[in-house]
């Protein structure tokens, strides 16, 4: 294994561990809020969903945006009666 590929593997392993940590922290929040109404099988299903969320937001976080890249659609003030 080359030095570069070992570094890549190590970075992926760190990223995976970070994502797993995030999933478990978010699961703790969800269990605190809704745990009393979920069966163990449903908790497993929710965990899959949270993994999907973390994978998606990890992809979003990897993109660098400029300060001027504002949310779309932009906010629009309201003045009724006109």
């Amino acid at each position: 294994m080359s030095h570069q590929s070992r570094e890549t593997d190590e970075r992926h392993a760190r990223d995976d561990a970070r994502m797993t940590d995030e999933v478990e922290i978010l699961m703790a929040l969800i269990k605190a809020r809704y745990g009393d109404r979920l069966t163990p099988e449903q908790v497993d299903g929710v965990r899959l969903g949270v993994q999907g969320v973390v994978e998606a937001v990890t992809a979003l976080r990897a993109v660098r945006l400029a300060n001027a890249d504002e949310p779309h659609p932009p906010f629009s003030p309201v003045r009724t009666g006109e």
Partner: protein
Amino acid sequence: VTASPVFTTLRDLARRVREREVSPVALAEIFLDRLERLGPRYNAVVTVTRARALETARRAERDIATGRHRGLLHGIPYGAKDLLATAGGIPTTWGAAPLREQRFDLDATVIRRLDEAGAVLCAKLAMVELAGGMGYRQPNASFTGPGITPWNLDAWSGGSSSGSGAAVAAGLVPFAIGSETWGSILGPAGYCGITGLRPTYGRVSRHGAMALSWTLDKLGPLALTAHDCGLVLDAIAGPDLADPSAANRPFRYDDSPVGGRRFRFGVLRGVTDGCEPAVVAAFERSLEALRTIGSIEDITLPDLPWEATTRIILWAEASSAFEDLIESGQIAGLTAPEDRHAPYARDAILAKDYIKAMRLRGVMAREIDRVLSRLDALVAPGRPTVAPPLGQEFRSAIRGTVNDVMGAIGNGAGLPAVIVPNGVGDRGLPTSLQLMGRAWGENTILAAARVYQSLTDWHLRHPAVE
């Protein structure tokens, strides 16, 4: 002998009504009978609105008899997805068992506009519960049962406008209204072998429609042809003070002949990756047909997380839109077991990540407009597969189990798309072609789809219903 009005285009039906070959009441009776008799076979109908239909049809008959003809939709029956509010005690169930008795005291703007055009509401059509916003994984996700495509009774009609697709394909109504947040018009139209139009976001008022995602939801027609979709869009489009997202851009459907116009089409690189072989073969045949009316170029987009962007927006907004149902635990009464718990996972979306998705959406909208500004349409297979079997978990771009860059960008950037049948795949099920255009470019993609349908006959084929 008068030809059957079933599987007849709107233009032909309108001519028959105008020339009094058939009366609006007789027309309504024919389609009401089909909805009541055949609708259950496809789990396509929630409520047949017989009393309202006959009252509207009688009014149309009187108006037309006295020379007050309101246009091409006057006296024409239709169905509406059951997320559009209807007054008069008619339930609006959103496809969800806990809401099967829900009623509103208003008509959605789309229903009102079709009423003003003289169209005759004959049925509230079945849909996936809460328009699929809870994360369903299987066709059986509605209290009316899984939607069934008329082409194969063991296959799904698609979601979430399941009944709108099946009802048009089976000739239960000449046209229907559906909604799309991500795939809910194109999916059922594709699986049912009909034509569907997803308008530009803001083209059609959402007032009175169930909200799944305020910044992604669109309402549009499903019908037999692209021309029919244009006629319906003409009636329902336009600004609406009751919906601030309805753009102040009047729309008139342009059905003038395209003559010798040459279209400019684009194909995203890798757009057929993961598609079934029969879908790829049908798409290649479609490209051959399109080459006779225009040019086709390969398009490469920047490598950005398009699907994740639209997915996070949809999930976060759905979580908020259905906060009451989720927090109260009412979702435990939904049909699909996964819909009873999957929504809780959306609490894991942080505000900063949702806003990042909304910022990336701006990048997405600009990038795709840059591409489309020199094209008439991006073309792609309408669906990567034919309709999946009823009893099987299906793959979904919203859940991330299949790629759908066209759907992610088209819905994320709010772009119009038309889907047309383009072949037959496995198990005798239809394949489809989609044409996606620039924002507010419905007339362009409808023109291209009309020409495509003039070159092919897939839209003239109908399932053996009786």
